[in-house]
């Protein structure tokens, strides 16, 4: 069956992030002026307004810890009805604590979830040419 959940829309501001995800890699937008990372990426730096932006690969070995989470027992979007409960987390990256990334933790029993729990990025191949960054317990 084809993938039923929403697929990330690529836009002029986020395309490099999702293109990298498709090849199972994390890239982040970085401001060349104030050197902050911008996540999610945008048309300008959210800290200083600079439009001098570049993309920096973080590789494919990404770890972090759960900063916060919710566990949903009913679907709020199409495609999630067959995948309940849905664990939605905010992950703080180990090597860049200012960067927080939203995702799901796959295959984790909800009762094991805890703020601070270590996780590792993985990529879910959702269509022939698209992949979604996700998390598993580290």
């Amino acid at each position, binding site marked *: 069956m084809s993938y039923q*959940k*929403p*697929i*990330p*829309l*690529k*836009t002029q501001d*986020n395309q490099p992030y*999702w293109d990298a995800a498709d090849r199972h890699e994390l890239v982040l937008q970085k401001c060349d002026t104030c050197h902050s990372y911008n*996540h*999610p990426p*945008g048309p300008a730096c*959210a800290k200083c307004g600079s439009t001098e932006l570049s993309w920096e690969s973080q590789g494919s070995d990404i770890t972090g810890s759960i*900063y*916060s*989470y*919710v*566990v*949903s*027992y*009913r*679907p*709020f*979007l*199409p*495609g*999630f009805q067959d*995948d309940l409960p*849905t664990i*939605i987390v*905010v992950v703080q990256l180990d090597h860049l604590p200012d960067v*927080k*990334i*939203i*995702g*799901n933790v796959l295959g984790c029993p*909800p009762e094991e979830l805890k*703020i601070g729990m270590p996780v590792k990025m993985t990529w879910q191949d959702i269509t022939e040419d698209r992949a*979604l960054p996700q998390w598993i317990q580290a």
Partner: protein
Amino acid sequence: MATIKDRYAIVGVGESERSKNSGTTPLHLALDAARAALKDAGLEAREIDGVMSYSENDSCTSHQLATYLGARPKYVKDIMGGGSSTEMLIADAIGLIETGQVNTVLIYRAMNGRSGVRMGGGGWDVNMLQGAMDGGSFFIPYGAGGPGQWFGLFATRHMQQTGITQEHLGHVCVSFYEHAQRNPKAFFYGKPLTMEEYLKTPHLSYPFTKHDFCLESDEANAIIVTSAEKAKDCKSKPVYIMGIEARRTVSHAHYWTNLDEVASDFVAPSLYKKAGVTPQDIQVASIYDCFSWVVLRQLEAYGFAARGEVGDFVASGNLKMGGKLPTNTAGGMLSEGYTHGMNNVLEIVRQIRHDYKGTDRQVENCEIGICTGWSGPDIAGAMILRN
């Protein structure tokens, strides 16, 4: 800059019937609410020269309402917005009156919030959501499609950091449901909630159960704002605006970039400064309650309990009648009804006017109240009112 302290007042409030299926249009509901507010104020429709509304594209326009009300306003405005829009539009109205554009403004929210466009998530077009919200592509694909999840991510972190428990969320619900038992017009009138029942209720989306989510209803509310001078000609007892903070934001439109700040944190200091009061001076509150936790987070932001002590504050019964801060005394959006906050504004106006005097609904001797709006963690406004 001119201070507006005590120079403007809310002079009329009114509502339509409240139901789950109105069988009519938002325009009809808005007309009922507007006529009730005019009657409350003792004003004629032609005396309204400004009309404003907020909606999520689920209402009628201000011009339509004015047309069928028989008002011929000099100014109409319809904005996109939910929570905290009432406070913002009141502040806008004051600005317009101050510069001589208009004299008396009617502000309304009309919605078939249960039978028509629902706010609780579900049914929205997913690509629209990804485009409409900043960084939408970074959470919609993960199933975060409604406020319960969006705000829940703040709640889980905040609860862990400050020691707030599920039971503390329950105290907010139980307190507000208790208020609803004195309000025959509340949806949950006749349906009290015990802590035991609350704790047995399964999560819809952890940390929230169905009791922690607000209601959805079909209804319209309206309020009328004018100058203190003009208020003297009205039939009602004016409720003066001591201070108002229209609309503050957090640092990023994609507000999950910082789960540790909410806009209410930035509203509070300047609000108290403008009003010239402190949290200790406030005797009654309407705290925006789209979710139980949102009340707890705002009690902290507005200084009613220190960070880490908010749970104890609500567990001690302080939100109930006779507590330190009777809050959402008509039942709030958790148990009365839901008009993106305006029903809570109506209630605090009635409390401060002592409309319930002689009944068990009246907060004894309340002279000063706070009314807060919460669009989300990202956007908030609030006002302090007196009689």
